[in-house]
């Protein structure tokens, strides 16, 4: 587990609009190395936009995004793609596996795109199947997997390159509660073992409860819910 004292990724006063519609109005969030942070908020509050800005997928109109001491928002697109491929992992709501590829090829994809040789990439991918309870499913295609299995394959793909930051956008949104719990338990355990930071966007409090802390996005700004000590006996 990496030391948690240092900020690994940070948004500073990020402003972002889509046409005339403002999504973020000066959002700031600093996340430490190895920390698991849940970003909560009502629909349309801007939480997914914040995640996309932090991940370098969207470029903010104003403000700054920092990753490991470097400005991410002012990097060239080529350099940002490299950071996304080598330093970040992603898990989305619907898995978004490549349907033409087998499950193990999907998991190996970030390594293959990063230049790892095919045999080595597949061997590394296969190691994740046992770890995530997916033994025997490596040769299946996404259409032959249940929703929970597909999401665990997507999790393996997000973690296979040992990302410094894993971005998870409603990773259990399409799953039943049992499958969702399994994905969250595996995700947080794997992230803690690898020392990966996780930024988890969710509207589900039971999912957010796997995080170290929660922040809430309202009207395009970030507020903290941490620090308020629970009154004794108030919460069951």
């Amino acid at each position, binding site marked *: 587990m990496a030391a948690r004292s240092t900020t690994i990724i940070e948004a500073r006063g990020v402003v972002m609009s889509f046409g005339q519609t403002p999504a973020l109005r000066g959002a700031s969030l600093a996340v430490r190395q190895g920390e698991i942070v849940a970003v909560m908020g009502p629909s349309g509050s801007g939480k997914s936009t914040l995640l996309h800005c932090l991940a370098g997928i969207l470029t903010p109109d104003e403000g700054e995004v920092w990753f490991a001491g470097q400005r991410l928002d002012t990097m060239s697109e080529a350099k940002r793609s490299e950071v996304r491929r080598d330093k970040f992992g992603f898990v989305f709501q619907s898995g978004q596996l490549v349907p033409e590829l087998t499950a193990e090829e999907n998991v190996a994809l970030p390594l293959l795109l990063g230049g790892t040789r095919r045999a080595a990439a597949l061997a590394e991918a296969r190691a994740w199947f046992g770890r995530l309870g997916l033994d025997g499913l490596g040769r299946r295609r996404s259409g032959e997997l249940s929703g929970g299995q597909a999401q665990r394959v997507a999790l393996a793909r997000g973690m296979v390159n040992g990302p410094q930051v894993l971005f998870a956008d409603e990773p259990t949104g399409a799953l039943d509660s049992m499958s969702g719990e399994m994905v969250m338990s595996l995700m947080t355990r794997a992230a803690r073992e690898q020392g990966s930071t996780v930024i988890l966007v969710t509207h589900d*409090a*039971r999912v*957010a*409860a796997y995080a170290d802390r*929660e922040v809430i996005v309202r009207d395009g700004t970030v507020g903290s*819910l*941490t620090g*308020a000590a629970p009154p004794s006996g108030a*919460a069951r």
Partner: protein
Amino acid sequence: MSVPLTLLGLLEREPSHGYDLKRDYDTWFGRGKPLPYGQVYATLSRLARDGKAIAGPAEHGEGPDRKRYAITEAGIADVERWLSEPAPPEPHLQTVLFAKVVLALMLDRPADHYLDAQRAAHLHRMRELTALKERGDLMDTLLADHGLYHLEADLRWIDHTAARLDLLAQAVHQ
């Protein structure tokens, strides 16, 4: 949790000594809050007095004398009735939340801050219960789930109420 009825239920399995009942109670229902011996024997005495259980003769052994307790037909009927009746849905916490929000609005205090603090407290407790699930056994998991689902229901109410505070403020000031 009704201690007398739970002990009666354990007695329905087989006649038992107080020591065995305490051990089984702590194993299955105690979850970090063991039942004091004094409460076990006081409860068994009351159950015997009320005709729900009967005490056998004192048994002499190496330690202090012990009595074996057995459930009666009246005790079995109590257990059966208890198990067949649904538990009260416990609306108490929500009543407290509701009263605080309404009062805060009546007094022109920041009800949204109160709801935020309550949301944080609930999420804090949910994190604790989730951590318990991650390191605990199946019993811990099921008990934690019970708490988590209740807290989640409260949180949904908090979110819905927070979204309707303006309307509620108008209503309480009419």
